């Protein structure tokens, strides 16, 4: 019991909220949230897989996909995961300057990815592939659109965090806060790894 009390005191010093297991409640909650997100994206990916063949002859995946462009976008998002992990690494070393730099670079790479997605959607729309054109297009736009919204939310969160670190307004354990943001960002990357292969690379 006494050990637990000492244990808890040490955690309080770090400013985080820890359960009786000695683990961070915030981190546990983030992992539960990410687990629940698997169900959301699982549903969207499954629906796309089911409907990917339901399209007109000249407006299917094989006609509209631009694999080199999407590959470049995937590479950008993959590299943003690297810069995010470098931000976490800097935060662990209490290096605020580099943490802010890497977080900003991550947000920038995320913005580049979203810009690529907007360009891709615009191109598809001009080719005649609207949201309600076919079951294929509806399920495709819903899946990739949901992912794009997640990336956009991540960018807003990253820029907010940079501002909060600059003004020293991060409440609680700063390292853990950066790590939690990182977990969300990496999850978004992990989902794109699945989308890139299942949606773009495997032919319908």
């Amino acid at each position: 019991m006494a050990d637990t009390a000492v244990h808890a005191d040490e955690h309080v010093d770090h400013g985080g909220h820890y359960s009786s297991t000695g683990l961070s409640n915030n981190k546990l909650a983030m992992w539960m949230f990410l687990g629940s997100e698997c169900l959301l994206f699982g549903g969207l990916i499954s629906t796309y897989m089911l409907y990917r063949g339901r399209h007109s002859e000249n407006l299917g995946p094989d006609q509209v996909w631009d694999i080199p462009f999407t590959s470049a976008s995937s590479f950008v998002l993959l590299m943003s995961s690297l810069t995010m992990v470098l931000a976490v690494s800097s935060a662990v070393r209490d290096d605020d300057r580099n943490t802010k730099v890497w977080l900003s670079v991550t947000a920038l790479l995320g913005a580049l990815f979203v810009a690529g997605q907007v360009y891709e959607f615009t191109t598809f729309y001009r080719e005649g592939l609207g949201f309600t054109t076919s079951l294929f297009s509806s399920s495709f736009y819903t899946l990739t659109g949901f992912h794009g919204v997640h990336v956009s939310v991540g960018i807003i969160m990253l820029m907010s965090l940079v501002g909060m670190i600059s003004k020293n307004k991060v409440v609680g354990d700063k390292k853990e806060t950066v790590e939690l943001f990182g977990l969300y960002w990496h999850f978004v990357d992990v989902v794109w790894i699945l989308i890139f292969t299942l949606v773009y690379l495997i032919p319908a």
Partner: protein
Amino acid sequence: MSTVTEQHDTHGDEHADHGLTDLGYIKIAIFLAVITAVEVVFSYTQDQLGAAFLPGLLILMAVKFFMVLLYFMHLKFDSKLFSLMFYIGLVLAVGCYAVFLATLHFFQS
């Protein structure tokens, strides 16, 4: 005594320096980029690869997925409880939607 040791172990896991060095992360990112390039090559050579195309692509995807999860998200170095929280969601999603797709005869087409 063993209880004390266990508590200290948990404590050590939680506050342990999270896994790799910056160079280690860069090496993993390069590895992931190479796998992505191989995946793209796969998609252009599916006729030559034949039956190996789909399993090969899915294996490469799984390798990338777990590399990010284990190293970038630190699941390899963190408490097993965090892994459990995530894998429960993942297994539920895969199981639930595999049944959903099987019910709608997806795997027969």
